[in-house]
């Protein structure tokens, strides 16, 4: 059986590993138009700091598996599901029995009147990061559009390099989808201490830009004038579904609709990672969630399903949003629902160490958590959110983050009874 995987991101790697571990004799071909090796996308900000870390951010793949697969460095132009072939750029054809689409996502393009769209740099691949690094050498006033996780991660890198940027955020506060207002203010304070300037609630209107000197001024609707010589955008991502759409595969919520075993609407065609929309059994809708652990888990499930070795292990944990990130040595975790008027909030604060731990409850169930400064037991909270644990009172060790030496498997019923 010949399996072809499109994409060498997280989902592609985990699909490949799952196939090779279960059935080592399966013929696996990986097609990618990104760098022809495996590296970690979230780590590419390290490339801005030092371009020679490309080796460091490479992901370890066992040598015997690496020898056994075929890696094609080429763009896929079209999927022909009737004949089971891929048409590659350059006219070559690649037959397949099973296809895994792990095409990932592309950064959202930002349009500002007065600046050509290719002058606004985005960050997704190693090549993008190296391009930013090259432009940054001549830049003194970088401006970042977007106050989400991507925007702040770039801002963090630039501030550490000694070129603190200005960040233009259209919503009234930072990380409006990840954090609640109190912790967002804490993070904002942290960035401002390190020299980053924020323009909150500022929608870019137009810009004066000189192509020769690459300098310009950005005008916002509030009337701010922001000088810049480098524009970077971190406004989130869009799933790349052009190939699937051409092949007639069902698209939902912007991504490729998949079942619990990652199969698309076409038989023998699977999808995983940022390009896939996974069915949420709670809401009855397909949801696209572009985060690393979902990509890794869905990639593994797709790989196991392709070779028929999928052991059903309950429902997929994708529906819960979660993220962990460290800014200026302050770790931060956000899990589940963190905003809403009907939420009951349990808070633990320690101002001297800049610790805020919040656990959100709705109808007695834990639905979300925000941990800043001390992230102990974040995983226990994630599991509680996943199992919708009913809690009368949050145990003190969970709220305060004291280490718990528990021997029992913490089944949530035992933990929270």
């Amino acid at each position, binding site marked *: 059986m010949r399996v072809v995987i499109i994409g060498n991101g997280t989902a592609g790697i985990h699909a490949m590993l799952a196939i090779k571990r279960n059935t080592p004799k399966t013929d696996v071909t990986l097609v990618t138009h990104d760098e022809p090796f495996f590296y970690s996308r979230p780590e590419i900000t390290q490339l801005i700091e030092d371009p020679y870390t490309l080796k460091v951010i490479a992901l*370890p793949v066992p040598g015997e598996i690496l020898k056994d697969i075929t890696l094609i460095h080429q763009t896929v132009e079209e999927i022909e599901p009737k004949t089971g072939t891929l048409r590659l750029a350059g006219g070559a054809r690649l037959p397949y029995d099973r296809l895994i689409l792990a095409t990932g996502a592309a950064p959202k393009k930002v349009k500002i009147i007065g600046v050509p769209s290719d002058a606004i740099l985005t960050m997704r691949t190693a090549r993008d990061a190296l391009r930013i690094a090259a432009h940054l050498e001549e830049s003194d006033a970088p401006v970042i559009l977007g106050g989400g996780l991507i925007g702040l991660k770039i801002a963090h890198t630039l501030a550490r390099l000694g070129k603190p940027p200005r960040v233009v955020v259209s919503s009234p506060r930072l990380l409006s989808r990840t954090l609640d207002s109190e912790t967002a203010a804490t993070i904002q304070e942290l960035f401002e201490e390190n020299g980053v300037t924020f323009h909150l609630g500022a929608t870019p209107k137009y810009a004066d830009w000189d192509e020769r000197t690459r300098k310009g001024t950005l005008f916002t609707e509030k009337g701010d004038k922001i000088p810049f010589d480098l524009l970077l955008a971190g406004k989130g991502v869009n799933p790349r579904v052009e190939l699937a759409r051409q092949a007639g595969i069902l698209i939902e919520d912007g991504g490729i609709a998949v079942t619990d075993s990652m199969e698309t609407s076409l038989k023998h065609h699977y999808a995983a990672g940022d390009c896939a929309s996974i069915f949420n059994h709670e809401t009855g809708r397909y949801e696209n969630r572009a985060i690393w*652990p979902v990509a890794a888990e869905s990639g593994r499930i797709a790989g196991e399903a392709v070779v028929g070795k999928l052991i059903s292990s309950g429902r997929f944990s994708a529906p819960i949003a*979660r*993220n962990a990130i460290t800014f200026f040595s302050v770790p931060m975790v956000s899990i589940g629902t963190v905003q809403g008027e009907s939420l009951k909030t349990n808070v633990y604060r320690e101002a001297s160490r800049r610790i805020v731990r919040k656990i959100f409850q709705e109808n007695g169930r834990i639905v979300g958590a925000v941990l800043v400064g001390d*992230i102990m037991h974040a*995983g226990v909270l994630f599991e509680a959110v996943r199992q919708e644990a009913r809690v009368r009172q949050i145990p003190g060790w969970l709220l305060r983050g004291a280490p718990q030496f528990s021997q029992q*498997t*913490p089944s949530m019923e035992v933990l929270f009874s």
Partner: protein
Amino acid sequence: MREIFFVPERCLPGCNACQMACVAEHLKNKGLLSPLSGLPFPKKRQTPLYKHSVRRFFPHPLRCLHCDPPRCVESCLSGSLIKNETNGRVGNNLEQCIGCFMCVAHCPYGAVIPTPAEHVSIKCDGCLWSKAPACVRACPSGALVFTDSETHAETLETQIRFKKRKIQPPRLSPARV
């Protein structure tokens, strides 16, 4: 797959040989002499957190269950967490860890712990390079047992049977697991 089992009745409180062995095993030269002779001497861990944990529980290494598939490994951004395919133990390669703490946010047992100063996550790796974990090798009273769960359950049953017949069980009382 063999696991570490803890028998609380056999544990000698205050012995802490398992902890020392764990530290020694994870040092580069596998010995405690150099850190002990080197200055400064480690501080006493008399923080409220430490007191709290000691008062309620014996410290013991049964935190990581080495899940299959391990969620921490799947969530690791840098590829530093690795599951050893032959013995099934999960370990963290600290030189590659970038301290994103995705693993901390995904371990349902709270077994992966963030270190505040070094910005890496640490966990019990079951000494995946050796035949048996260092804590088990160091335990003087047999409170830590390294075996598979079936064998351990059998041993426990034998102990309970002895107790029911009101015969003194061989050396030690039955264990709760």
